[in-house]
């Protein structure tokens, strides 16, 4: 034992509830924990640091919150005295307590890493070597850098991440942006939802457009066309996401998008039935077209071949080969 184990009941009023020096948990509201407390009471003591006039909470933020919700006046606690350890050593207690019984989510990892470095003076090298592997993170400087930025990232983005609306890689990308960009993008993202697969492409387009045009990455969100999509109440958040993505894609690849649109229009002008598919070569790299149809019998085959023959006699067909 490195410190005396003193356990006693402490009045919740004696605990400085505003002090979150040792907090790691991102979410302290836990309905199952509250239910458990209500049914069988507090099973494990919280860990408190004894101060001159008040106690500081080291471990047990969720337990204490649940007790307060149940209007409890006292909490069963183990007391640590500051003379027992330095503050980083005390934070280690919170760290290991959390690590011993659950997986930290990415924002909790970010919070712990940020505190180790910025509040408790643990060196980058020690964090990278000792702490990142404990959290299943690669022991690299860049990883630490990203997680530190994630901890200080915009609250709106953090909320979207917690809600599962942003992937970890999207969050990492957004966290690296200046605060003002994060705020604007968080606000822009409010009206849209992007599938995990689309997020990578979406943010990649934002990044490319910013670098290409020498603008901040949030600028596209201020464009009137984007705003009109974001404000279109007739669309679902996912539909808005797809439409904004399509617009960004068009800005990033203007000539390719125009060619695709021309092809679509000219194909439409041939007035072929939908069962006959005409497909251009990928990215129009060669002018070839591929024609496909399925025919269940000879009669249907003849019908579609006749449709194709009719289309082949129109000048619109030539246009299809001159899309670019």
């Amino acid at each position, binding site marked *: 034992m490195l410190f005396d184990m003193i356990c006693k009941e402490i009045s919740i009023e004696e605990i400085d509830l505003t002090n979150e020096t040792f907090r790691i948990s991102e979410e302290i509201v836990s309905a199952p924990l509250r239910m458990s407390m209500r049914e069988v009471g507090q099973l494990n003591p919280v860990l408190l640091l004894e101060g001159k006039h008040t106690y500081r909470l080291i471990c047990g933020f969720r337990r204490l919150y649940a007790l307060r919700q149940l209007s409890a006046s006292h909490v069963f606690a183990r007391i640590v005295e500051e003379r027992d350890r330095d503050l980083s050593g005390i934070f280690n207690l919170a760290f290991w307590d959390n690590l011993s019984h659950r997986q930290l989510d990415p924002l909790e990892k970010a919070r712990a890493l940020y505190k180790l470095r910025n509040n408790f003076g643990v060196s980058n090298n020690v964090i990278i070597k000792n702490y990142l592997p404990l959290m299943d993170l690669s022991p690299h400087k860049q990883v630490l850098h990203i997680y530190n930025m994630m901890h200080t990232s915009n609250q709106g983005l953090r909320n979207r991440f917690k809600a599962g609306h942003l992937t970890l890689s999207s969050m990492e990308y957004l966290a690296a942006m200046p605060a003002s960009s994060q705020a604007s993008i968080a606000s822009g993202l409010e009206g849209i939802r992007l599938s995990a697969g689309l997020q990578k492409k979406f943010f990649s387009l934002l990044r490319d457009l910013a*670098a290409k045009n020498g603008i901040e990455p949030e600028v596209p969100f201020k464009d009137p066309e984007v705003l009109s999509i974001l404000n279109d109440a007739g669309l679902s958040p996912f539909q808005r996401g797809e439409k904004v993505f399509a617009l960004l894609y068009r800005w990033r*690849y203007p000539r*390719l998008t125009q060619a695709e649109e021309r092809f679509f229009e000219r194909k439409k002008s041939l007035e072929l039935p939908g069962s006959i598919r005409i497909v251009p070569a990928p990215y129009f790299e060669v002018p070839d077209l591929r024609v496909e149809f399925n025919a269940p019998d000879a009669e249907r085959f003849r019908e579609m071949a006749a449709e194709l023959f009719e289309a082949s006699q129109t000048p619109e067909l030539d246009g299809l080969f001159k899309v*670019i």
Partner: protein
Amino acid sequence: MIPYKPERILVQKESWQDTVTSEILGRLPDVEVRTVKDSEIRPMEPSAVSTVQSRNKNTLVLMRYPGSFLKRCQGSGADTCCNYYVVSCVWNCHLDCTYCVLQSYLSSRALIVCTNFEDLINEVRETLANSPKRIFRIGTGELADSLAQDPITGFSRRLVSFFAGLANGFLELKTKSDCIANLEGLDHRGHTIVSWSVNSKRICRTEEEKAPTLEKRLAAALQCQKWGYKLGFHFDPLIYYDGWERDYREAVKEIFHTLDPDRVVWVSLGALRFPPHLIDYVKERFPESKIPYGEFIPGHHGKLRYFRPIREEMYRNMISWILAEAPRVTVYLCMESFPVWKNSFGRESCSATFVRDQLDKAVCSR
């Protein structure tokens, strides 16, 4: 140009027996030298799949290459290929152009010089002797700049003299440098083409920062012209940006107003293309570069290329500007498809045989 000066030299044990080694070390008397084992060398070969990235270009490695030196150019996979051959006795380049494929292609960042030069010479001699009726155009600029390290290697003097004696062999020294001193006074007999990779002044300034300016490259070309060498130019990579037309047209004019157009045997055009993963290298190493933000699509061999109309627009314009200045010069495209050749030149005849014959004729007749 910033000359290449290594901080350390690693010499493979067997390489100590080669004249090339002693010559190179003699030119770098104050650089630390260490003998290394084969096991340290093997991962550096171009064919090695390796993550050896620790050694930087300040390390010069002198080693023997056990493989074949003479290879067909990688463009041979394209629809219309010019049938070019390459020999690579230096791997890597210190000029660090932002778009350079070598930064992701080679397994080592060290600059490597192959010291078994005699093997290269013998291989070329034998191959050419086996096909005496065929013309071989052979370049050394695939895995390195042909002349940027020449002050240290001195390879150009050996190669030029060797090719002068080959009836069916023509050497192309392809460079961005102005390191031409070794070419003076050689009896090349018209079998060496000194060619420059050129670009618009803006691209030279922003993406080829360590290479000589266009003016300096042309001054070097002018000197080579005075020494009787045939000349070539490669607008490769052509890079698309707002205002490219004005800048590239100016570069074309500058070339042909500086040099005698009749001494220029060929001009090649190649729009920027690269393996997809190179984009991440460029973004990381050269964050100011705008190159990664072009309108690229995955094309031939999975490489990223400009969308076809962009390439054709560039080629069409470049061809007309070049032919306006030098009507007799042979212009060709590098690694392009039939449709692009056809749309760029406005003619049907663009088969590989046609292109090969045109280039062979150009090199033999000038």
